[in-house]
């Protein structure tokens, strides 16, 4: 086991809970775009904090960071490769037929 200085986990937890609270307050503003931005922005920040401090990615070898980023990048590749077909109802020379319920 490598030597590891432990950050103040309680404070990190408290920040996470506050962030959760803020993301819940979002819908009160009534603006959908703002709610989404807030919710997903906070999710990214929270996930980043959990990864960095609880999973100790912040002090882990760079290699592991690279690994995580690569996996996420692959998912981005998948998403954007599939989007022209699955995310749309219309495209060049094709269109979706009216389907059943949703």
């Amino acid at each position, binding site marked *: 086991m490598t030597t590891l200085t432990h950050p103040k986990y309680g404070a990190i937890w408290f920040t996470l809970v506050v962030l959760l609270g803020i993301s819940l307050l979002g819908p009160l503003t009534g603006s959908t775009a703002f709610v989404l931005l807030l919710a997903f922005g906070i999710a990214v920040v929270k996930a980043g904090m959990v990864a960095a401090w609880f999973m100790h990615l912040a002090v882990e070898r760079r290699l592991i960071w690279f690994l995580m980023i690569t996996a996420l990048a692959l998912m981005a590749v998948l998403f954007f490769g599939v989007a022209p077909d699955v995310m749309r109802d219309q495209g*060049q*020379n*094709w*269109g*979706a*037929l*009216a*389907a059943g319920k949703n």
Partner: protein
Amino acid sequence: MIDLLLKNASRSGVEIDKLFDLITFLVGFWFLLAEAVLFGLVFRFHRSRSPRALYVSGEEKHQKRWIAVPHVLVLLCDVVIIAGTMLVWSHVKQQLPPADAVVRIGSQQWAWVFTLPGPDGVFDTPDDIARVNELHVRSGAVYHFELTAQDVIHCFSVPAFRLKQDAVPGRLIKGWFAALEPGRYDIQCAEMCGIGHGLMAASLYVEEKEQHARWLQENAAPPRELVAFRFPNP
């Protein structure tokens, strides 16, 4: 080259055959070269002719050249092929030339239903002609097709036309073809669609103008048993 095995019969097929020949020329060269070098080296450097091997790391500049030069040449060939294929693809699948007629193609387990608008040229009128596993078109005319499937994925393929397009349930896919000369051609299903996949054969009849007009007139009334086929509305 494909013509030797199955004669091309459509306008877009001409381009595809040319592209095929281009690729054959380029990759054929590399293939023959690589095989010749491979067998040549095995022969030349067999232990009986070359009792002691050389020490070559392949890491030095003048050695890497033997890989780097073919590397660039392969890339060049790729660029030529990419340019050719983009051109062909955009002609065949992207830009539809102005239509002379439209045909709706429905597919289901395990039959094709082709609907022609009839003599009036308008769909959803009583003179629409629906035919199972039988498509009649006019030679030389540009046909647009609207392709869909009722149940599972099928694939509309006319080998002699070099034409292939999957029919996907839930979506309407458009494409085009234009026959070059009269005759009868096979239509096949090219996507596994269940136990009757091998039975999904249909015929494409290409007719001269007058003959086709006569056929349209004679068949303008839809056969009774086909009324039940529901073509999903776009």
